[in-house]
């Protein structure tokens, strides 16, 4: 009796062998944790953080009853929107420049534009602390130039977080914009110019609409990264900037309130979902 497997069965076995290890790791480190996070957000904790198995909406009710929560949501949304717009304004000229410059410079500058991605966010944030601190480079320059008498406060407030985050997000935004610049053809601009459009009109009526898919993708990416950013607000905010992401960390690590941290995380995920939905609705119009 021969026990050789059919070709189809062999293929099936090979497929399982290829996929199973990755599927197991994915389940243990991603699916299971996310399910547990959702579950724990509906569980009651005894004082001291010990988990019970009592089902409750209490964590969410507590969240929405606390006026501080609305401040956190408002702070996170406002900061993420300002950072997104600031990054767009800063990255757009870079992307336009890269698109128009000759190929040699384009390759060099492209590498320079994305190279900060390879430097840890902690290091880049520390660089901003050196620049913006009371005894930092900018205050030092301004004081030695006699423009100010004492140091002005550039960090440990929201301003510092904005500056640091916008700089950290520029490479992501630039990458998304460059990817969307493919549709931009100088022919359209020439046509518009011949029909009498000035530079300003050409920019707003030709260049911006044509590059809209890249703009939208970049904005989604930066918004989503800003909502969940934590290192930069923590270090440049100096404990004075309160956001959803910093609250999740404080609840989980500092105060060990895991059930509340879980429900705050679910709120963050909902904001994520809403941003994605808004993006797909707007992006559909520009397809």
């Amino acid at each position, binding site marked *: 009796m021969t026990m050789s497997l059919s070709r189809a069965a062999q293929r099936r076995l090979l497929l399982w062998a290829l996929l199973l290890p990755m599927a197991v790791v994915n389940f243990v480190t991603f699916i299971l944790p996310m399910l*547990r996070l959702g579950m724990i957000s509906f569980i009651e904790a005894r004082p001291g953080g010990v988990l019970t198995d009592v089902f409750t909406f209490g964590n969410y009710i507590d969240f929405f009853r606390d006026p501080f929560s609305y401040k956190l949501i408002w702070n996170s949304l406002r900061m993420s929107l300002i950072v997104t717009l600031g990054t767009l304004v800063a990255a757009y000229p870079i992307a*336009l420049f890269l698109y*128009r410059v000759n190929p040699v410079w384009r390759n060099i500058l492209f590498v320079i534009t994305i190279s900060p991605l390879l430097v840890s966010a902690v*290091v880049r944030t520390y660089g901003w602390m050196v620049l913006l601190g009371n005894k930092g480079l900018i205050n030092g320059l301004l004081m030695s130039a006699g423009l100010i008498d004492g140091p002005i406060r550039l960090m440990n407030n929201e301003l510092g977080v904005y500056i640091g985050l916008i700089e950290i997000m*520029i490479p992501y935004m630039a990458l998304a914009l460059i990817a969307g610049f493919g549709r931009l053809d100088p022919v359209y*601009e020439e046509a518009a110019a011949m029909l009498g459009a000035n530079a300003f009109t050409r920019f707003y009526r030709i260049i911006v609409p044509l590059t809209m898919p890249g703009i939208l993708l970049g904005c989604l990416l930066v918004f*989503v990264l800003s909502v969940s950013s934590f290192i930069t607000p923590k270090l440049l905010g100096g404990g004075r900037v309160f956001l959803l992401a910093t609250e999740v960390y404080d609840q989980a690590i500092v105060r060990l309130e895991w059930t509340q941290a879980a429900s705050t995380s679910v709120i963050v995920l909902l904001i994520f979902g809403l941003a994605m939905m808004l993006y797909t609705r707007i992006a559909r119009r520009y397809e």
Partner: protein
Amino acid sequence: MIGKLTLRLKILVFFLYIFLLAPILVVLPLSFSNDTFMVFPPESWGVRWYVAMFEHEGLTRAFRLSLWLAAVVTVLSLLLGVPAAFAISRFQFRGRDLLLNTFTAPLLLPSIVLGLAILLVFVQARLLGSYSGLILAHLVVTTPYVIRIMVTAFGTMPPSVEEAATMLGASPFTVFRRITMPLMMPGLIASAALSFLMSFDEVIISLFVTGPQVRTLPVEIFDYVESRTDPMAAAISVALIVATLAIILILERTLGFSKAMGK
């Protein structure tokens, strides 16, 4: 004038690049400060903080751990991700897209939420502050990139080349060694380099799963920067930037990194 670079745009872009690179460049002069506190410009110069950095036991231990961790995570990411990517791009089966999306979904989630979720499972499984816990947590970050890159790599690799070799009498092993392997090499290098750098730099998820005895370098630096204001963090930053540059230069010289990144 149409579609050309105006002087105004050039000047604007020049200042934007200064803004972009300033925080990376500014740590270099500060790292050679001999002052006790961070003052800019430094009042005295020297290599005091580089010496202090190498003598700081917590930092050197964290550095060794991070290096070891990144190497282990890179090897495991390839061992897990490459076969899965091969199956997804070369086999037809039900739920293929769903599986690809599940494998790459951690990429889209905020690290802070993912970190908390992993903490909640690891605390039960007693994996917090353990080496295996750290490795597993880092695999969540690195495997989505490996799978994305390798699915693209296998997708652009025409199966007809392999079929031709088989028809000409090459054994499956020879086909893999002589055809498949060289063709997927750029993707493998890109995956390995990205995994290594991602793991070495990972800080948010690590903050949730490290213990007092098992601390990675980025976590150690984060705590240091948060609590101290001496120029040693600048010395560490310069060392990290130089190390990253060295890795990229070595890869570029030996294997053609920019080609591997699909540029």
